[in-house]
């Protein structure tokens, strides 16, 4: 009799193991070596005006969002509405990093969908993206007032993620 129950026991053990594996962490959470470290420094021309340069210096003193986006990235468009709302609420300054894109396309895109960014840095050849460890767009970094990377989110933002991952971290630090 026992030998016929054995497969059942093995399978239940395997399932328990896999459940634990799933709980062991959000598999999407790609470890970023930058979390808890100062954001890698950069200086880039802005998207709308190549003469103006922005960089890490602009981010100091406040919690800041840095959002990596591109016109070819469909999920960027999906999160754009939320970014517009967030910008309207004035709860946090949002900077963009326009990544692997073309300047006219990007300007047209913002013209069509609205511009939630204080400014977007223009990084067509992935120079800063490489330093920042960008895997793909959209990606959003949360920097604290000291310019340290507190959190990095992969994929589009929405109100639930904003509240769970971003607001909570900002409140934790400043009770």
């Amino acid at each position, binding site marked *: *009799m026992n030998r*016929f*129950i054995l*497969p*059942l026991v093995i*399978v*239940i053990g395997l*399932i328990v*193991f*896999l*459940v*634990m*594996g*799933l709980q*062991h962490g*959000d*598999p*999407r959470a790609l470890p970023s070596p930058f979390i808890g470290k100062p954001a890698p420094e950069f200086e880039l021309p802005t998207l709308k005006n190549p003469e103006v340069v922005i960089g890490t210096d602009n981010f100091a003193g406040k919690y800041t969002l840095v959002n990596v986006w591109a016109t*070819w*990235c*469909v*999920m960027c*468009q*999906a999160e754009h509405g939320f970014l517009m709302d967030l910008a309207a609420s004035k709860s946090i300054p949002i900077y963009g990093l326009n990544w*692997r894109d073309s300047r006219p396309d990007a300007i047209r895109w913002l013209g069509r969908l609205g511009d939630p960014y204080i400014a977007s840095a223009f990084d067509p050849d992935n120079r800063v993206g490489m330093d920042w460890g960008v895997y793909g767009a959209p990606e959003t970094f949360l920097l604290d007032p000291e310019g340290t990377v507190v959190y990095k989110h992969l994929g589009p933002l929405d109100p639930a993620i904003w509240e769970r991952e971003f607001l909570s971290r900002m409140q934790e630090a400043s009770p």
Partner: protein
Amino acid sequence: MIPEIGQFAMILALALAAIQTAVPIVGAHRDDAAMMGVARSAATGQFVFVAIAFGCLTYAFLTDDFSVLYVANHSQLSLPTLYKVSAVWGAHEGSLLMWVLILAGWTLAVARFSSGVPDAFAARVIGVLGFLSIGFLAFMILTSNPFERLVPAAADGADLNPLLQDPGLAIHPPLLYIGYVGFSVAFAFAIAAMLSGDLDRTWAKWTRPWTTLAWLFLTLGIALGSWWAYYELGWGGWWFWDAVENASFMPWLIGTALMHSLAVTEKRGLFKSWTLLLAITAFSLSLLGTFLVRSGILVSVHAFATDPERGYFILAFLGIVVVGALLLYAWRAPSLDSDVGFALLSRETFLLLNNVLLVIATAIVLYGTLSPLIYQMMDWGKISIGEPWFNFAFLIPTVPLVILLGMGMHAAWRTQNTGTWLDVLKLPAIIGVVLGIVVPLFVYGRMSVMLAVGCIAAFWIVVSSLVPIIRSLRREKGAAGITRSALGMSVAHVGMGLFVLGVTVVSAFGVESDRALSPGASTEVAGFEFEMRGLNNVTGPNFTAIEAEVEIRKDGEYVGTVRPQKRQYLVQKSPMTEAGIRAGLDKDLFVALGDQLGNNAWSVRIQYKPLIRFIWLGCLIMALGGLIAISDRRYRVNVRETAKRKDPKAQEAAA
């Protein structure tokens, strides 16, 4: 509008799948012919609605409907039409829809071609398949809706991953899915047999052709995937022991064991409970593979976009299906005693060994695949068991497996006289050893232990597989005396032998070398001279590329010209390597462009791959063997005979 029709069709298909499950199974239990009759029409209806949904999604791709999120993410205006179609199954949601379509297709096939099977049995089989459809349709509707809208619509799409823009990949997933979803049929037959308690050997007879059919598609699918990885990933390897590859390989190994074990159950009424267990395991491993690939629990080179929620859903469904099946098994299997025995030297013994070794091989692959997870959970640090481990561990069960194969083929059922057996084996053994030593030593000029083992095993299998055919031909009846089953077995085993030969030779004598080349320069690898004649810019529909023209010569004589490309896809901006391959049955010469080194020089990876085509040719021949075996008239005759002997009770009820 069209996407909404697709979505609606999916929901209707779910409702029909529920009917297809509940009504026939209850009907079979109550012996109610009308209720059992629902099975076939519900299965047909379910297929039609899933096909409509699939058609709607294809239509959305063909019409560039970027208001559908899935289309916007995986297509693009200038994507060639062929890839717009294959993009339908290029990512998670759509490939799941194809999964369901194929499952519905198998169900329809079972409903159509099971007229020889008693109605109650067929009703249960179709009901079980319906239950599997429910799980996957619900999964899709709840967590992975391919028809989700994007508001506002995108002006253009994000393009299909350039890796997937390849004709090989257009047909690789369908073949693979037909294969591993096809094991659901064997699973459903096993469950139906256990539900009815009717566990004599007839269920094995009915299951056999379905299992072989699924197996041959899986063989083709895996071979095609391996071939695609070889020329498209640009590395020149043919198997990487990647989690996704292993996910399809494990069901193949168990499916292979199942085919052999079904033979014993059908012919001799032995191994009944073991065969049931294998039928359950083969499909369970298909489900496990789906879970591993789509939950993101393992990191893989070709994992889908992942989501833990999806992981829980599939795991829960897997739990219900597998635990349910095994509970049924624990209840029914103990009553399955066989009163027949077999001698130590008999075909049964060899098939038992075949099964044990294949199960060990599967366990090794399973352990290796899950090991990163085990390490991570035990906090032993992040590791991944790599190719060397697999290559070594996998040989432990498979070397004896291929050697025993040749012996087993010549052993008779029940009992085999040792003297005559050794007589038959003498010739293949001598030819195997002689060729196995001569070929590497004189054709390729080197020898080692593993090389000898591999080559001897390969020739041994090929010759011993051909012997029974040759012997039959020399008898009076000639070709007519050979059954399709026997011929199929021989052909498949010859394929196995060629596969082993290809793997052995290419592992031992393959040469791989990274060189720097600029136009006008040449370099020598494995006795061939590679000269870069020039570099050109070329444009494709959605990419630009740099193409090198490389002329290959041997001893000054022209061999061929290859044109490897480095492509830059316009939308996704990712560089892709398109290898230039001079293919031949005896060897491949493979040139891939690496990085630009400056001064017009490029790093170039050059490979010499002797007999690599035997790997895929062997798989193709194995699949052909399967095809020959299922065309055996025995199955067709059985269908008619059983139809005549149909359960009288069911006929009465139907009348």
